[in-house]
């Protein structure tokens, strides 16, 4: 019986060790496995693929636009329901609802026609969520997973 106990202890030790290694690699948010980039060129999103409920993270939307002009960014899907947007920098010129449940913000591009919007998110939901970001005809879908 004791041998079985020791064998179980060894197994548990290996499991804990592998979970720690996975955590270091970013399986549970914030790490190489979790940091992702969706899209390229005209629209790019940097985000954390894995999130934890209640934890803060950052999402960056990189878009090309006409220099000095306003550009509309639409965030749709489950993102707004599963996460709270704590702040958006630069502050949007206007914001409104997009596609019934999403968010549509208008931000101003710089002189080179580049927009980089930083969103502070705090995960509220649980499980798999699918979202989309759209700008000037480009549309990028991505998924995230929120741990309890």
């Amino acid at each position, binding site marked *: 019986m004791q041998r079985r106990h020791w064998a179980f202890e060894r197994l548990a030790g290996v499991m804990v060790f592998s979970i720690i290694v996975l955590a270091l690699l970013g399986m549970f948010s914030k790490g190489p496995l979790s940091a992702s980039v969706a899209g390229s060129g005209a629209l790019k999103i940097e985000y954390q693929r894995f999130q934890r409920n209640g934890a803060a993270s950052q999402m960056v939307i990189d878009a090309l636009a006409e220099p000095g002009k306003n550009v509309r960014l639409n965030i749709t899907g489950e993102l707004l329901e599963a996460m709270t947007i704590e702040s958006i920098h630069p502050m949007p010129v206007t914001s409104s609802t997009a596609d019934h449940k999403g968010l549509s913000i208008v931000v101003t591009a710089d002189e080179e026609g580049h927009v980089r919007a930083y969103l502070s998110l705090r995960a509220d939901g649980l499980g798999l969520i699918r979202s989309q970001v759209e700008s000037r005809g480009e549309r990028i879908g991505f998924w995230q997973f929120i741990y*309890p």
Partner: protein
Amino acid sequence: MDSVLRAAALYIALLLLFKVLGRRSMSELTIFDFVLLLIIGEATQQALLGDDFSVTNALLVIMTLIGIDVLLSRLKWRWPAFDLWLEGSPIIVVENGVPLQSRLQAARLKVEDILESARESQGLERIEQIKFAIIEKNGKISIIPNT
């Protein structure tokens, strides 16, 4: 990634800090030591969890701390030299009724403390009745009386 690194950094920092504090504080807690430990606990908790109160984060931190503990105990078992460095060895402070003053001073102990322990554990009255008084790794004082 940050949960594991935070937990590991704090564990190692606290380990080193308490090594500096010395052994005595670990065995018998005075009021001062108790207050200190209480407040250190509070300060550590904030640093460990940050603003992330998810179950996942808590579990990762706990697993990391336990994992480091198990790892260190395995290393100590494998390499006695490591054990010696980490925990030290028992120190004889009284030999055949004669207190070794330099060691007592280094351990921040007085002869009265040794006598108190002798009374408690063995019921001895005088220092001449002590063959050996040893400070163990965990800070407790063991008394071996003259037969």
